[in-house]
């Protein structure tokens, strides 16, 4: 198993144990080495001291070659159990004496060396020189048993081993206890992190075990969790708000849809009602057109016949009354026609065509010839741009306004009628100005109302329907109409048209 993947507990234990073991082993090794060196040193001092003393004692015997004395000296070694073998050699290497003298010759070294201390298995071979009167005469050999030092060393090594094991056991226990101070906070952090990542529960907190770096880490982790929790809460709150807003918007849009549907239904209903009303109105105007005109025609016709047949023989007063009857019928006929015109405006679908206003004005003037012939009228008609609109309706506008100008300038010796284009608030407006009798501006509000007249019938004839019709046509087109006047100085009628604007922008 890879060390990196070990649990933190075992990792910590392993680290501590590894360190302790290495330290303890090194210490034990040092002790053992010291002991070995020490034992060996003492052994050499002891054994060589005995060998040197024995060599000094046996100097004379070796010098004289006295085997008996030599064997006597060597025999003292029997008191020392460590000495296994001993021998005295002459200078030339021959053996003088041996101990124990029953030992076979082969176990002794064949030739002596002057000075030696060599460990050979479980014994040590020692050679020391033998002198007589400061003259080297031979050598002494000792074979020293090492069982005792070996035993002592074994006991020592065993003790060290036991202590080592005890130390390791204690170290394991201590490390097991100590590692918890490090691993527990980490494990706690890990458990908390796991709980957070699995349950998505940001309210859990890691327990803190101290004020060390791990404590700081725990604090930081908990702080982070608090922040995440706060943000999570804020997020949930804003999500709830958003959902609420969305629901509100949906509810509002549903309401709008419902209202729209209701409105559409109402519009449909109103449209149907309006269509019905329109149909009724059409039937009414048909009746007016047909049923009102017929008796008028009859009144006028019979009055004329009466005049033709009996006029010459009738008194003047009777003829005057006949004329009044005919005039009344004629006026009412015109009124019916004007009313029919007014009711038709907007009912017949207005066409959208390009209308040459200059030609239209020429046509109107031609139709007014009966009125204008024999009069002195100065026409100042400017060239007007073409307009978009319904030619029939536009002609009614110009016919009414121009015939009014002609009519109300009748008292003037020289009438001046001006038609031109001006800019009013950046919008092109057509105006028709005359130098006629004008009117008092305090009656301007009544001017465009139906049946409203500012002059007596005897002064100027009229039905009071013409300007109402004009206003209706202009306003239906999206324009507006207004008048300026001064009594006895003349009047000016201005009007704007949507179609006029469009044409100006195009050109």
């Amino acid at each position, binding site marked *: 198993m890879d060390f990196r993947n070990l649990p933190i507990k075992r990792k910590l234990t392993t680290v501590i144990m590894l360190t302790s073991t290495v330290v303890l082993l090194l210490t034990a090794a040092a002790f053992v080495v010291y002991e070995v060196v020490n034992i060996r040193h003492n052994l050499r001092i002891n054994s060589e001291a005995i060998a040197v003393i024995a060599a000094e004692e046996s100097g004379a015997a070796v010098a004289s070659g006295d085997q008996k004395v030599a064997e006597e000296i060597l025999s003292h070694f029997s008191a020392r159990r460590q000495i296994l073998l001993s021998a005295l050699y002459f200078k030339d290497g021959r053996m003088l004496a041996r101990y124990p003298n029953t030992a076979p010759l082969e176990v002794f070294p064949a030739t002596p060396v002057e000075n030696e201390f060599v460990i050979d298995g479980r014994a040590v071979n020692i050679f020391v020189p033998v002198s007589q009167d400061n003259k080297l005469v031979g050598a002494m050999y000792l074979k020293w048993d090492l069982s005792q030092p070996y035993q002592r060393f074994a006991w020592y090594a065993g003790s060290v081993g036991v202590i080592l094991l005890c130390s390791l056991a204690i170290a394991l226990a201590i490390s097991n206890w100590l590692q918890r101070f490090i691993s527990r906070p980490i494990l706690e952090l890990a458990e908390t992190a796991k709980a957070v990542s699995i349950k998505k529960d940001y309210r859990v907190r890691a327990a803190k075990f101290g004020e060390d770096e791990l404590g700081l880490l725990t604090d930081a982790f908990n702080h982070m969790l608090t922040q995440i929790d706060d943000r999570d809460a804020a997020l949930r709150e804003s999500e709830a708000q958003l959902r609420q807003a969305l629901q509100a918007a949906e509810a509002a849009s549903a309401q709008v849809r419902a209202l729209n549907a209701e409105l559409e239904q109402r519009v449909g209903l109103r449209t149907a009602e309006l269509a019905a009303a329109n149909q009724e109105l059409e039937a009414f105007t048909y009746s007016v057109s047909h*049923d009102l005109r017929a008796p008028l025609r009859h009144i006028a016709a019979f009055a004329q016949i009466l005049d033709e047949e009996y006029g010459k023989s009738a008194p003047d007063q009777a003829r005057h009354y006949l004329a009044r009857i005919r005039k009344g019928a004629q006026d009412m006929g015109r009124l019916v026609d004007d009313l029919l015109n007014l009711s038709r405006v907007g009912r017949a679908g207005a066409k959208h065509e390009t209308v040459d206003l200059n030609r239209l004005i020429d046509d109107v003037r031609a139709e007014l010839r009966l009125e204008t012939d024999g009069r002195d009228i100065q026409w100042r008609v400017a060239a007007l741009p073409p307009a978009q609109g319904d030619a029939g309706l536009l002609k009614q506008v110009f016919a009414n306004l121009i015939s009014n100008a002609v009519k109300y300038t009748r008292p003037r010796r020289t009438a001046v009628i001006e038609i031109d284009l001006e800019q009013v608030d950046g919008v092109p407006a057509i105006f028709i100005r005359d130098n006629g009798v004008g009117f008092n501006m305090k009656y301007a509000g009544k001017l465009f109302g139906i049946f409203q007249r500012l002059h007596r019938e005897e002064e100027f004839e009229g039905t009071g329907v013409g300007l109402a019709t004009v206003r209706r046509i202009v306003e239906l087109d999206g324009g507006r109409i207004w008048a300026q006047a001064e009594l006895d100085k003349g009047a000016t009628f201005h009007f704007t048209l949507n179609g006029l604007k469009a044409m100006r922008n195009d050109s």
Partner: protein
Amino acid sequence: MNSAIEILLVEDNADDVELTLRALTKHNLANKIHVVRDGEEALDFLFCRGAFSSRSFDDQPKVVLLDLKLPRVDGLEVLRAVKSDPRTKTVPVVVMTSSGQQRDMVESYQLGVNSYIQKPINFGEFQEVIRQLGYYWLAVNQPPPSGTSPKA
């Protein structure tokens, strides 16, 4: 046949009948005119049935002056019946009405009317219109040869 009717006037209003007859009389056109007072009577006359069963399809008038607003069967229906039957479709029909309704005019022409006139309010003008009408349809216009209509 000299006694054959030249003008059939279909008019329910007595005043209009009188005024029209007066205008025709003034121009010596009234002696060969027949007046019917509603649409049903007009159809009986033109299709030679009921009170007019003794009439022949060969002797159709030179012109029918037809008012539109009539009791029982209105003028447009009379026009439709006349113009959709092969026995009567060649008879010239002139609509004379007080109504200035465009709708009536359009429908009349679609049904095959030969002329459409709105009665002028002014009696002088009315007399002039009647005079021109009579002159045109009785003197100027060539009627379809009699006997061209298929037999009933």
